[in-house]
């Protein structure tokens, strides 16, 4: 480097003021690109920070307070609301309900979505656009609207009982018994969300190189083997994405619980978020406790997402 060679004193000082590699401006091209990138990200990042992270921090502070309505004081001890949750029988019941939905509904839904996507991806299928639209359409229906339709269908004198009566089945009080109420809710969720997840799988399938499938066929693999050993592994990132989204969505389930069953009978179908709403808005407002509930839901979502990432993400 020229700076290290012996030069007149003035020149050395000139050199020293410059950054190393003095032939480059202080803002290098790489860095300028980086900063441009950040500049574009900044508005969105700030917005997310202001409308998402700030409320999260506020909610956490709120969860350490207790009191009715606006008269809130610091809880004593600070984690009182969290401690209280452990003794709350209704909360435990809602956690149980939510996990029943999660464990039964999410796997069935994802498997069904995967199979449907595979069928609809068949290049020889006719009226493909029609099938795709028909299966996706429920996802465009308002949550409350479809819940009300399901409620009407499964009423004691509703469509389903009328239909079953043709086969000599006695009327079932679908929404009045704990197990059937949960089953109807799960059925509703499946109807509403399977098509939604199918679209992700379809998009994933488009990205799979057909030659890998043809190669497997050439090697004598049957359809199931092709699906299970070739297609599914290549869809892994999409499966992971939908699994995390569905888990997240189910843990935060509210609309169906509210509109379809009102959480009944006797809290047997109430979801955690529905209970949160009850605690905050329907009963004597206890926003501190509600915020603590929200944080428990957040922690559960985070733990489950973490586990799924660990199990599902096999990238090197």
């Amino acid at each position: 480097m020229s700076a290290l060679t012996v030069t007149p004193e003035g020149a050395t000082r000139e050199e020293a003021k410059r950054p190393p590699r003095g032939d480059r401006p202080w803002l290098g091209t790489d860095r300028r690109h980086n900063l441009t990138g950040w500049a574009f990200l900044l508005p969105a990042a700030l917005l997310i920070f202001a409308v998402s992270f700030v409320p999260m921090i506020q909610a956490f502070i709120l969860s350490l307070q207790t009191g009715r309505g606006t008269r809130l004081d610091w809880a004593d001890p600070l984690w009182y609301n969290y401690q209280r949750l452990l003794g709350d029988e209704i909360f435990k019941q809602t956690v149980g309900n939510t996990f029943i939905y999660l464990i039964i509904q999410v796997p069935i839904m994802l498997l069904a979505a995967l199979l449907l996507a595979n069928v609809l991806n068949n290049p020889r299928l006719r009226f493909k656009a029609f099938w795709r639209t028909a299966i996706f359409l429920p996802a465009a229906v308002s949550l409350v609207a479809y819940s009300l339709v399901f409620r009407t269908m499964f009423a004691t004198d509703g469509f389903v009982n009328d239909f079953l009566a043709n086969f000599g089945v006695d009327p079932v009080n679908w929404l009045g018994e704990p197990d059937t109420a949960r089953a109807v809710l799960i059925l509703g969720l499946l109807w509403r969300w399977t098509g939604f997840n199918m679209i992700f799988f379809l998009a994933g399938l488009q990205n799979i190189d057909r030659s890998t499938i043809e190669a497997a066929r050439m090697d004598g693999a049957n359809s199931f083997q092709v699906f299970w050993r070739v297609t599914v592994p290549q869809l892994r990132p999409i499966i992971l994405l939908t699994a995390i989204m569905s888990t997240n969505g189910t843990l935060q389930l509210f609309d169906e619980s509210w509109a379809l069953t009102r959480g009944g009978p006797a809290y047997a179908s109430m979801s955690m978020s529905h209970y949160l709403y009850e605690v905050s808005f329907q009963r004597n407002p206890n926003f501190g406790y509600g915020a603590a509930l929200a944080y428990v839901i957040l922690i559960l979502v985070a733990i489950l997402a973490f586990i799924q990432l660990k199990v599902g993400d096999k990238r090197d």
Partner: protein
Amino acid sequence: MTLPIALIMSGCSGDGGGGGGGNADDNTLTVWTWDPAFNIYAMQEAEKIYAADHPGFKLDIVETPWDDLQTKLTTLAQSQEFGELPDIFLMQNNAFQKNVINYPDLFSEATDAADFSEFPTAVTDYSTVDGVNYGVPFDAGTAIQALRTDVLTEAGYTLADFTDITWDDFLVKAKDVLAKTGKPLLSGQAGSADTIMMMLQSAGASLFDKDGNPTIADNDALKASIDMYTQLVDAGVFTEVNTWDEFIGTFVNGSVAGTIQGVWISGSIQTATDQAGNWGVTNLPKLDIDGGTNYSANGGSSWAISSNANVDLANDFLKSTFAGSTELYDTILPSSGAVANWIPAGDSDVYTQPVDFFGGQAIYADVVKFGADVPSNNTGAYYYEARDAVSAAITKIIGGADPDEALAEAQSTVEFAMG
């Protein structure tokens, strides 16, 4: 996720823009209330009456279902956005204590809005906190037993056989009616405590003691009510359905031959025009325990004046209409079945007129008489929690759980909520 929610929230407060009565012009009041056929209609009639003496007076009525109204109030109080409040809003009597105690900042005192001695105490008690009145009672929730007289005749009974009786009598007769006609006399929503709460109040009992402590466990009146309710359901004379619409449907479509509810149910009964002339109204069966009466109430609502109101105008408006105009009650009674709590209204001729739908019975005069005998109900701030807990307990008891255990559990649920 959060961004759309934030947008929705700001959207909501925008919708509330009808509020802010204080800053609107001096001759307009904004009102939140929920039923176009009932309380909205009553407000519109009140507007006409008041405008006749006060030219230029106008109401801006915003239809707000009760559940939304409660959520809006909570949200506004919580965010201290009192400027979004209307001048006047309607509030369920059972929720009045809770809201005044939790959010006193939402209300203006209504002491000047009526002469409260002209209302039954059982009704003004709902909206009185620490001796101060916060609401002008609107419709009475006085409970009635409405029965299909043609079905009774078919079984060999008359309305008199169901008047001033006990629940035990009722059970025997209702079973007989069911055996002879195939029709149950009662129906209700499964998991709703409506019927139990009416039984309880009829005996002057409640879910709380005077100091506001829950008395769900070891409450003899409650146990007697639940025991009777279970017997009614088991005997098949009380049909349980899941939703309110189904409940209304049971007697409108004629599969159930009666109902016990607040008098406001008479509006729904009269939608069954094919049954005109075949209904009769009498008092409730009573519990065979100390303090049992044949009178009770369910529901009912009162007008509250908000802290954001044009207080003088709102007071004067309510005083000249809902607490001072027989003309108003004469208009709204026949068309909407809104039975007044305001005692002077009961003297009006309109109340003594026979109602054809009810076989020429002057039911509203009867209801006003019932209303005077309704025992006061101790609601308190935790009424809804207690009611929900009891509803859950009833569901479990009907499902076969031990009543004492289920009620003890309900008691601890309420204590937990209060803790």
